[in-house]
């Protein structure tokens, strides 16, 4: 039972993290009783579990995730949606039409066209097939306005914060509506594009400083400062 690093120390792929009776968490792999890192990130030892919080990663689809994607292809029976992951996702036409879908009469592009952005939920995925989406739930569907920010998917939990502390703070401070896609795409909708801009900058700041402590307070400060500035210039 040996640990080779301090908690939250930066490790690179291939670093031996622990030896002995430990459980392998995220971004690590084990050979016999040795646990190694597979990604660059901060190592986390908790109880018997060893994992790495990756600093850079890509989105791997997972069932029940809400994602934000862009329609890239209109087929005969559905749409292909780019969801910022290694796979294109499929949205079936029957999912989007309220009445039974008939390819003869119903025009797919009347609902979604190439370039449209949608909020969707993944309803089926395994490694052998492309992920399947649905927009048949409250809050899902075509995006009509707002601004989009793309960040590394691993940093999404930090944007949400502990029990949603960070995201609710940003919402309260700016009055913007924020939809987070688990794939690292975030949609910001507000009354005023200037306010949306503040949220975008706040999210970028969270991405950059994700691994630091006291981040919520600093982001609050930054938003309040920017708001004061705007008020002085009469923009809001």
């Amino acid at each position: 039972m040996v640990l080779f690093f301090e908690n939250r120390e930066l490790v690179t792929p291939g670093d031996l993290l622990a030896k002995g009776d430990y459980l392998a968490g995220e971004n690590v792999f084990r050979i016999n009783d040795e646990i190694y890192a597979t990604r660059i990130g901060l190592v986390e030892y908790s109880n018997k579990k060893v994992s790495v919080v990756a600093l850079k990663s890509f989105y791997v689809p997972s069932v029940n995730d809400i994602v934000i994607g862009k329609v890239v292809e209109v087929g005969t029976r559905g749409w292909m949606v780019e969801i910022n992951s290694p796979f294109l996702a499929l949205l079936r036409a029957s999912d989007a039409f309220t009445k039974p879908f008939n390819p003869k009469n119903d025009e797919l592009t009347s609902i979604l066209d190439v370039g449209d952005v949608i909020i969707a939920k993944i309803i089926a995925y395994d490694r052998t097939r492309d992920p399947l989406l649905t927009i048949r739930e409250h809050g899902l569907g075509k995006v009509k306005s707002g601004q989009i920010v793309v960040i590394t998917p691993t940093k999404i939990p930090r944007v949400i914060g502990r029990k949603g502390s960070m995201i609710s703070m940003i919402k309260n401070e700016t009055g913007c509506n924020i939809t987070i896609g688990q794939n690292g795409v975030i949609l910001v909708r507000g009354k005023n594009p200037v306010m949306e801009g503040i949220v975008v900058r706040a999210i970028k700041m969270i991405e950059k400083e994700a691994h630091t402590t006291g981040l919520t307070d600093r982001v609050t400060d930054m938003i309040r400062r920017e708001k004061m500035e705007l008020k002085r210039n009469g923009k809001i």
Partner: protein
Amino acid sequence: MEKSEKPLITEDGLRTDGRGPRDLRPVKIEVGVVKNADGSAYIEHGKNKILAAVYGPSEVHPRHFALQDRALLRCKYHMAPFSVQDRKSPAPSRREIELSKVIREALEPSLFLEYYPRTSIDIFIEVLQADGGTRCASITAASIALADAGIPMRDMVVACAAGKVDGHIVLDLNDIEDKNGEADMPLAMMPNKGLITLLQMDGLVTQEEFKQMLELAMEGCNLIYQIQKKALKSTFIKTVEEV
């Protein structure tokens, strides 16, 4: 290249560029230099200047190339026309195609390709300036680019050559030594477990000399591994300390 008139190793044991037989050329590595790539690295290994960029995992184009049970790893090693003394045709030569394959196979064991079936990971290596040992420097740089892209890896891959020049066993051959020496042996390995992923040799050596070269090359790899790790960490530490 005509035979150089100067001896490759002087009487006091120094090489053409003033190094001792067991010395490495200076290595400098930068991470994340290509903004549009998912991961990238730039390496200066002596006079070699090489850029590596990684894209993926992403959907495979053309589609029918996709593998059903694992990711497709593609690698393109290319030398810029201005990278060598006489202009090199920009079209891929026989040598470049072979090196692309060799580099791909050296990196393959370090990746968990079976995690991402039906996708492709593309590596592009551009040699901007060449001075012997480009395949080794390319492997070192490509491995960092893969780590920078956030692709899960068993270990980093580092590469370094050893060889025989004027009867001496030397580390990290440059172009003149490679062309006029007796033997050159590039070696790539995963340093934590000491697993060799590439071992090539041309030239003639005895079994005893081969053992010495192997040991020396592995020593060189471990030295470069430290530099590689430091470069990778420093780019991410920067973001930690900026606050």
